[in-house]
Structure formats: C-alpha cells, structure tokens
C-alpha cells in the first residue's frame, strides 16, 4: 500500500539514501535494519514528512503523493515515533499528545480540558501508561516520555479513516522488557487496520516482531528477506557487509593497556543518580559503560567531566583525588569530552574549524595575550592533514562540515588540549559507516599513543567491539564488569541480562 520509488536523499553532497525501493503491504510489520548512518532514520523521516527526498517519489496504493510536514503525513494516516523525542517539556502530556490538533477539543474557541484529558487518558492507557495527562512532560521519566511518543503516533487510529502506516524508530531502545511486551501487544492489536515499519538495533526483536526485513547499508537496500527465514548473524553480515567478525572494530589493533592507572573511582556516587561506582582506567585502556537510559551511566559520564559533580566517594586522576566542579576543572585535569550533541556541545558551528580546534586550549597559540593567527592556522592545518578532515579550509565555519569531519574536529580540539583521558559519549552517533570506521581507527591509534578512553556507545556491538573493559549499570548500580580482551569478548546477551 505504501511504496518508495528510487528514493534518494543527500545532506551537503553526502548521500544518505541511494535509490531506495521499499514496499509496505497492508497489515504487515516491516523490519528495517542497518548500521547507524545506513539511512534508516532518514528514510523514516521522509516517509513521515519531516524531510523531503532529493529525488524519487512516494506512492500510496500506486498513486504518487508528497508530504511536506508531519501534519500532512498524519492526515494520510502515516505516524511516527521519533527516536530523538518530539515532545515539548514545558507543556502537559495531554497537550503533547494532541499538539496541533487543539481545534478538535475546543468549544466556542475555548479548550475543553476535560475532553482533552479524557482522550489523552484513553491513548495513554492503550500503551499501558497510567499517569495524569495534566502532568508537565518534563516531569516524566525518559521511558515514560518514549511511551507518550508511542501513544501520540498510535493515536492516529481514531483520527484517520482507512489504513494506517506507523513508523517506529528505535522505540524499544530505552524501554524495559514489560514495556516492550506491551508495545508488541499493541502492534498486534492494530494490525487489522495498520501496517508498521519497525526500526531497532535489537535484531532479535526485529525478527520476533516483523514479517519481512529490509536491510539497509550505506543508504541502499542490500537485502529483503522474510523474518521467518532470517537469523541474527545473517542479518548482521548483510548490515556490515561482512561477517560479524572482530575486524570490524579493528580488534587486532586493540593493544593491551599499560599498567599505570590514570583515572580511578572509589565508591563514586551522585545522590539520586548512581552510587558506589568503582573502576580503574589504565593508560591506553578503553572503558565502556553499558546500560539503558536511566541506569545512571549518562550521569556517571557527566560527573567525570564536571557537569555533575560527584557527591559521594572520590575520583582520582593520576593518583590525586580531584573534585571536578565544572568542565573547566576536568579539562585542567587533562580530560576531554566528545559529546553526543555534536552541534550544540561539541562545536561552535559559527566559528571556523581552526577556532574550534583551539577552543579548549587557546594558550597553545597565544603569545602573551595575543592570539597568533598564523600559528593557529598552521596548527589547524596540521590536524586537518593528520586526521584527514575534509573541509574547504580551516577558516570554514564548522557548520558546513559533514558529521564525521565535525567529529574529527572535536577530537582535534582535545588533542590540541593535550587531553590524556577522552570521554566518548556516543562517538559514532549519526555517522555513516565510513566515518565510523575512521573513528574506530582513531580510537585505536589514540590508545596506542597512551590516551585512555571512557566510552558510552550507541550499540552493544560497538561497546563490546571497542572496549577493553565493560562496566554494566542498572538503576544507578554497577551490576557487572566484563573483560573484553580480543578473542575473549562477551556477547550481547551477557550484557543485556545485567542491563534490564
């Protein structure tokens, strides 16, 4: 019923989708798998009207159609659960559920809150969420917000006549088992009048829920196969273009780390976030922290960079106990932070490549109090060469670079700041496969040069692939520690059972 014909999309010359043809049949659950940057989210966004294709077309029951915004898409019965949430924190849950549809709940131009809340409560119950729809959305837990997103998309059901298409972009990544069960149940109920596109990193889930699976790689469909006949390893091979072998993460380059401890946590904790975390980060080691959102890993990482000063225990850098009250303190201790929010926290997009590279250590190009522009330029050009940063010049604004190159600029910034400990917060989010491999290569190289890395990754594969050591957290506690030396790496299920 829904078809894409030769769909292509590129950002700033960088292709994200190439001639994608997919087809969604009535009452069908279509799985969509692929590496980050394979184009899954882009494809979903085009279907939902958030983005417009560069070329190619959409068809519904064979009829071409165009959607300029999610509203038009919704009118056609196409709804989406966004991966990065589309809820406003400062208004109530009910308002978010029916954002843009207030008209349906007004009498004589006035909002009828009772009706709105009743309707909202219905939608929430459908996804088994028992909260007051009048609550400020900001007051909800992340998982709860994800369920609200879901309810918002599913609420299409009574808005639109006829067949629905509901796009689920990573709906499960932050959900607990029970919630996932409920989600699956809802999907099954709705199948009689809706078809779904289901995107997830958890391949087992995809296989469990879907009828057919499309595999995307580097923006094109590389395979379509019935879920019944597929298995996880097979999917993975198709996704990464090679067997799930150690080499993807360059494990052969994973040198054993040196004995000396550069960062040490003893009974570290932040009241209400996480508690009693102990670890030792050695020179050249990659320490990965795994755990679902809300497990406390985000907070732990932010503590190590001074965003969220620890309230319990102690943190030692090179053996000396430190208190990191601000990021500046952390930087002074030789810690660098590669954030997941690259464009807001990683770079000042209006500033040039060179200016960003020296941002964390302006002293390196300072003569007295004077910035030496010549020196800044040479320094920047040197990094551009060494990290193969693709840019029209070091004075181009960083906003004009592709994600991968931006990420390299961020790394260059910390290398300029002579950081010895790098915190990689979802370092490959939104990068295409090529860029990812470069990041992996860089991580390996850095470790060889004696830097140490604390990492939280998008996927468990990545976590396992890159790490020397893996810290698994749940509800603010460390539930397991795995050694991940090449050859003897744990498998995803080992981690998951300690995560949820």
């Amino acid at each position, binding site marked *: 019923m829904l078809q894409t014909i030769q769909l292509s999309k590129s950002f700033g010359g960088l292709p994200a989708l190439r001639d994608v043809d997919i087809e969604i049949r009535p009452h069908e659950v279509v799985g969509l798998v692929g590496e980050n940057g394979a184009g899954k989210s882009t494809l979903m966004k085009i279907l939902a009207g*958030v983005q417009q294709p560069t070329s190619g077309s959409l068809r519904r029951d064979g009829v071409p159609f165009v959607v300029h915004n*999610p509203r038009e898409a919704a009118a056609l019965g196409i709804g989406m659960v966004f991966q990065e949430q589309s809820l406003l924190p*400062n208004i109530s849950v009910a308002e978010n559920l029916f954002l843009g549809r207030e008209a349906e709940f007004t009498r004589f131009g006035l*909002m009828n809150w009772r009706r709105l809340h009743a309707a909202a409560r219905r939608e929430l119950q459908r996804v088994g969420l028992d909260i007051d729809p009048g609550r400020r959305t900001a007051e909800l837990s992340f998982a709860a917000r994800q369920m609200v997103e879901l309810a918002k998309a599913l609420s299409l059901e009574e808005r639109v006549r006829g067949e629905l298409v509901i796009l689920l972009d990573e709906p499960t990544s932050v959900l607990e088992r029970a919630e996932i069960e409920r989600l699956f149940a809802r999907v099954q109920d709705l199948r009689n009048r809706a078809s779904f596109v289901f995107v997830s990193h958890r391949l087992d889930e995809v296989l469990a829920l879907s009828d057919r699976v499309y595999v995307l790689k580097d923006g094109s469909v590389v395979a379509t196969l019935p879920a019944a006949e597929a298995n996880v390893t097979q999917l993975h091979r198709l996704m990464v273009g090679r067997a799930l072998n150690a080499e993807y993460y360059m494990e052969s380059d994973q040198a054993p780390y040196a004995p000396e401890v550069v960062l040490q946590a003893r009974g570290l904790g932040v*009241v209400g976030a996480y508690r009693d975390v102990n670890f030792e980060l050695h020179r050249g080691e990659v320490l990965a922290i795994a755990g679902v959102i809300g497990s406390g890993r985000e907070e732990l990482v932010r503590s190590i960079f001074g965003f969220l000063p620890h309230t319990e225990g102690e943190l030692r850098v090179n053996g000396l106990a430190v208190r990191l009250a601000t990021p500046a303190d952390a930087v002074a201790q030789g810690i660098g932070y590669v954030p997941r929010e690259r464009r807001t926290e990683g770079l000042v997009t209006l500033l040039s490549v060179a200016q960003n590279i020296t941002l964390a250590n302006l002293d390196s190009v300072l003569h007295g109090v004077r910035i030496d522009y010549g020196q800044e330029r040479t320094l920047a050009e040197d990094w551009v060469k060494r990290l193969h940063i693709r840019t029209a010049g070091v004075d181009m604004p960083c906003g004009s670079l592709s994600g991968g190159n931006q990420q390299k600029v961020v790394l260059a910034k910390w290398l300029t700041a002579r950081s010895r400990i790098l915190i990689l917060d979802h370092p490959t989010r939104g990068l295409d496969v090529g860029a990812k491999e470069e990041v992996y290569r860089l991580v390996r190289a850095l470790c060889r040069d004696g830097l140490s890395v604390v990492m939280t990754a998008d996927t468990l594969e990545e976590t396992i692939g890159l790490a020397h050591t893996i810290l698994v957290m749940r509800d603010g506690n460390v539930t397991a520690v795995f050694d991940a030396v090449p050859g003897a790496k744990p498998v995803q299920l080992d981690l998951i059972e300690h995560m949820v």
Partner: protein
Amino acid sequence: MSVSSGPSPLALPGRERRALYRARLRAWAPLLVLIGLCLLIDIGNPRFLTIANLVRVATAAAIPLVLALGTTFVILLGSIDLSLEGVLAVGSVLTSLLAANDANSLSFGLAVVPVAVLAGALIGALNGALHVGFRIPSFMVTLGIWFAGVGLATVLLGGGTVRVLEPLVRDVALTRVLDLPVLVWIALAVLLLAWVIQEYTPLGRYMYVIGGGEDIAALSGIPINRTKVAVFTLAGAFYGLGGVMAAAQLGVGNAMIGDGRLFPSVTAVVVGGTSLIGGEGGVLNSLVGVMIVTVLANGLVLLGVSPYLQQAIQGLMIIAAVAVSIDRVRSAIVK
C-alpha cells in the same frame, strides 16, 4: 502558578523526584517572597496590612498589572516588547482628545475606550508584522516603535497636556464598587480575560509551544507567524487599555504618561517567575510579580526610606526575589 499536580512523583527515580519537588517549590517562591515582603513591611509599619492601604496598593497595581499581562504573553514566546511606553502614550492621548476635554470640542464618552484599545492593537500588530515579516528581532522592532509611538503621541497633542473632563472616564478611577475603584475591577477583569486566553484558547497554548520549542512547534504544524502577530497585537491592545486607565486615573492625556513604566513591567513579569527565554510562567506569575514590585514601592514610602536610597534598595530586592525563584538546575544557561 504553572504547576500541574500529578500523582505523587514517588513513581520516579530519586534524582528526578528531588528535581521535581525542587521545581514545584520554586514555582511557588515568588508568592512566598510576596508574603514575606508584606509581613516584613507590616512589622515596620502596622498600617500596611489594613484594608484601606491594601485597597490603595491594589489601585496602584491596577495599571501596572494590565501592562504586565501584555508583556507576559510576549515574553512567553521568548520575545520582548519594548514599545509599551509609546503605545501607552498614544492610548492616553487618544482618550483625552476624543473624550470630553479642554482642547477640542470632541466628546465620544466611553466610546474612546474601544478606540484607544484598537489603536494599541494596531500598533501591536505592526510590531508583530515587522518582526515576523522582515525577521527583525522583536527587541529592535519594538525599540523603534517605542520612539515612534511617543513621537506620534506628541504630534497628536501638538505638545502639551489635555485634561479629561468626561465624567464617565474619570469615574473609572473615582467611583468605587464594593470599596474597590472601578480601575481595580477592570484590572481584575483583564486578568481573568488574560488567564482564560492563556489557559483555554489554542492561541494561549501556542504561546507556550512556541516558547518551549519553535522548531517542534513548526513540525506539529503550529501557525507560528500568525500566533506571534496575534500575541503582539494582544499586548498592544492591553497597553492601549492601560493608556485609557492612566488617563482616567490622572485626569490628563500626555505623551510622557508612559515614562518609566516599561522596565518595572518587565521586572514584574520576571520577578513573578516567567522566564525571559519563554515557555515558562504565565499571567498568574505576573500578578504576583506586579504585587511584589508595587508592595515594595508602597512599603518603602510607608517605612519612610530616604528617597536617595529607594531605587538602590529596590534594585537589591529585585535581584534577591529573582535569585530565589530561578531554577539553577534547569536554567544552566542564563542570558
């Protein structure tokens, strides 16, 4: 205050629960400040908390409240409206020139009220149109309109002050209903209206939506530009009404009648707990904010504080009031 009572937040993990309690308590801070202030002043001068004086405080707060309500809506969007004094001047001048007065023979009685309000609305609409149409920051547009508005008032007046003789208009300030001047009742009515607009109309909700995240608002198909223009128009209308009220209270129309009213108005809005970034706060916050600012001014006179010191003390008190009601956790970035 804009706190939705949910089920006990105990369902949440500890960190979020604590943050939630903090946020909810903060939302009430301005009110606590106001109460504390009143008690403090009353200790200094027991006459403060007497009906008679509270009525006077209410009277003094009436016009600032109407103005602050207009400002609130604009600030909820995350924009700012500096044209207040200009619009107010035009409103008062029109009132004085069209109602029975000592400068010309015109006498339209209470019909001047809608005229002045409409004039204000038009200027407000101009603000909005220029802001949205040419994508000029509201700060700059309204700054220009501020100058232009005062200029226009001067032109209309040809210099000078016109005395309002229309009894119906004067009665707004002079007659009392249930011990409260009509002025106060008007302010309360406007407050109610503003509250209804904020809580019960899509327009009101869109203010929060746009203030909370213009990009997401756009994705959800919210008519952003139309909303913005509407809000500036509304603000203008409120200022126009403020002009009428000022003319009624002082019995004159005058291009300087708005002098020194803008910054107190913005201050009141912020002190009430409405964020300059937009999306947080509301008209009830502004009610509290206006009361804080008015009570402070009234109190300093009651306590007989030296004129030299008054503005300094007010400054310090304002900082204190804002400091306690600001959420240092959420507002990591303050501009």
